């Protein structure tokens, strides 16, 4: 293109469309909802959102590489079943969590190998591992919940590090760790480059395949760790406990302004996306809206966020050209 004007935009300061929606929702629910704007309820939104956030963070990175992980919900369910079963059989909490994380990591690496090494499209590869993980979880439990998991996990789940509910604390730690890695290590650049210009990364002498597999492995690992929170919350392992959660994670990432193309995305946006979905669900519950309608509302949210993003982007372009 023949456009050589100086680029005036400095740091990328885009606010995802969901940012505006979140503010609108917060105000609306505070006015119309009973007891929405109370500290316990706000903490409740955080607790409800924490599992989703643990999945949405790695999902952001995977989507930035122009990939996808549909297996997260199923892997989370399977890891939860493994965790609960080991606890039920009297194993230590540490061993059970390590096993759950290991199951997640194994599936993540398998996804990475399928996508990167064998060149299977991410949609297909992770749809396959979704089926495998879900099937294993059902076979292992005969479709029943695994109950009687002892006291160690509930005790941990009820603990309040720094005065925060455990799940919020864990989600916060995950946020900080992902943020640090993306912002202050090479991996942040590499993830964007995987989606934006893989060839450039190859020519820069980076071990591209390793980084790419690592992104999927991270998704699996986080799914395994999220089992700790989900199992703690329902006090049992259930083979379909997290079914479909990957779609909420994808929705949160999209709502957060990450695009499926060219390595464009931010973790901060995803955090906003997760919170928007959490607030929406909580507020609608508060207003006694049926859960089926809540599902529809997330669909509306995704579309609304994208429409706002487009409008803002169009405004920016017009503004910078004028």
């Amino acid at each position, binding site marked *: 293109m*023949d456009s050589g004007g100086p680029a005036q*935009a400095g740091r990328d300061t885009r606010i995802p469309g969901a940012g505006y929606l979140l503010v609108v929702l917060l105000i609306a629910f505070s006015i119309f909802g009973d007891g929405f704007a109370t500290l316990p309820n706000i903490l409740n939104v955080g607790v409800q959102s924490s599992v989703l956030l643990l999945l949405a963070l790695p999902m952001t990175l995977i989507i930035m590489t122009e990939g996808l992980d549909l297996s997260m919900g199923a892997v989370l369910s399977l890891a939860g079943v493994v965790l609960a079963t080991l606890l039920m059989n009297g194993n230590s909490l540490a061993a059970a969590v390590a096993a759950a994380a290991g199951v997640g990591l194994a599936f993540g690496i398998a996804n990475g190998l399928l996508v990167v090494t064998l060149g299977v499209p991410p949609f297909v590869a992770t749809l396959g591992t979704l089926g495998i993980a879900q099937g294993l979880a059902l076979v292992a439990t005969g479709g029943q919940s695994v109950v009687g998991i002892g006291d160690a996990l509930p005790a941990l789940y009820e603990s309040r590090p720094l005065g925060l509910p455990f799940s919020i604390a864990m989600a916060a730690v995950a946020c900080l760790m992902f943020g640090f890695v993306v912002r202050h290590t090479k991996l942040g650049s590499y993830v964007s480059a995987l989606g934006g210009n893989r060839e450039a990364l*190859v020519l820069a002498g980076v071990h591209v395949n390793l980084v790419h597999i690592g992104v999927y492995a991270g998704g699996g690992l986080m799914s395994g760790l999220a089992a700790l929170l989900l199992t703690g919350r329902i006090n049992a392992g259930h083979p379909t406990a997290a079914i479909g959660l990957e779609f909420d994670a994808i929705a949160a990432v999209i709502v957060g302004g990450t695009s499926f193309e060219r390595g*464009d995305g931010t973790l901060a946006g995803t955090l906003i996306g997760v919170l928007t979905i959490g607030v929406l669900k909580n507020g609608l519950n508060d207003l006694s809206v049926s859960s089926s309608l809540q599902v529809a509302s997330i669909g509306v949210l995704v579309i609304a966020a994208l429409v706002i993003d487009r409008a803002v982007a169009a405004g920016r372009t017009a503004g910078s*050209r004028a």
Partner: protein
Amino acid sequence: MRGISKAFPGVRALDEVSLTVDAGTVHVLLGQNGAGKSTLMRILCGAHHPDAGAILIDGRPVRLHSPADARRLGVAVIFQEFSLVPYLNLAQNIFLGRELSGRIPGTIDRRKMHAEARRLLDGLGLDADTRTPAHELGIAQQQVVEIAKALSQNARILVMDEPTAALSDREIARLFERVRALKRDGVGIVYISHRLQEIFEIGDRITVLRDGKNVGSFAVEHLENPENPANLENLIRLMVGRQVTAAYRERFCEAPGETLLEVRDLRTGTGVRAAALDVKAGEIVGLAGLVGAGRSELARAIFGADRVVSGTVRMTGAPLRRGPTGAVRAGVALVPENRKTEGLALMRSVQDNVLTAGLRTLFPTGWYRAARAARAVADVISRLRIATPSPARLVRFLSGGNQQKVVVGKWLTAGSRFFIFDEPTRGIDVGAKAELYGVIGGLVADGAAVLMISSELPEVVAVCDRAYVMRDKTIVGELSRTELTEENILRMAMHHG
């Protein structure tokens, strides 16, 4: 590099090619597209592995298993295809894969990276913020970042593959200053370019490749001397392997026909203002100016691809309806600068591409008829002499010149009469250029009109019947055939001329 050979399935890309680069010199690598220049350079940077031959650095044979190996040995490459990551900022792009370490192990020092990037970009005269994501820059600015990226490696061997293809003259001058400084520092430079005049300016030695073979290697001195065996005519002859008789148009338009396109007082959403121009049947009209003068923006607005704020665009007297649909139906065709992304569907066949714009014209009833489609495509292929084994060949596998012809062919089936060419010869070799000028000449001979945007002044002078010159997003003057010289264009295109 000694006796390098490389074969790809079905093609012998390189056949015993040797190349010696001395420290502190610029070695120019000449050759048509497909001559093997890029393959040779990809071997030098470790991206391809040679089937035979050896690479010696400082006289010692080295084995390059990966780009990382090459980089460690001091080889840096400015690639022709942009190797920038769109959503990383300029500092991240410049140091991609070589991030500067911070104090905590495993972290990066962002502040230092931005400072270093700033210094490098200043040296090349680019004042864009280093925190700008790369995709917000124009092509010329991206090219500058690309150069900064290679310079940042402090390489001992620097490969520049068409570094000036997207640059304006001022930026080229800056680049050459840097190149001379690098020479003084003892860096050995391999320089690939299609612009012959650049060779004289910075080259020390020339090697010509043709069909994967080394066909000659000369010192650059006295090239203009006709007695010299390596004079310009000879170089071109070596590159193309046949005598180029007339690279440029022989006959200009004596008596133009009716006015096809008429633009009055056009103001666009992209900042072009007060633009007025006419193009008559049978004319090739140049649109000259420096990079950033607003030429592409004006062209896109005429085509309806950018928003028109005020003013009129008329085609054979009738105002164009808004949007590209209206323009195309009125017979306007755009051959865009980025043919690979804006002009073609690379993964589709020649036939599919040629038919995209003409479906409406060819099949007015809306029913596709295979026989008529095949006839129309065969007609275009023979008329434009597109070198393709069959209409079913994927466009991706054609050479740059032939891809460009497919874009033109697409508009022929649509029955277009007014063609806008945006930098039509960028990145295509000398032989293909001559052929493309022939194609453009053929269009106007058949009564079409052409508006040609070009940054190559000799091209504008040699091909156009007259030219408009743009500066600061407006048309600042018009040059008739007799006034049309490189000096006159530059005087108008630059400030305070």
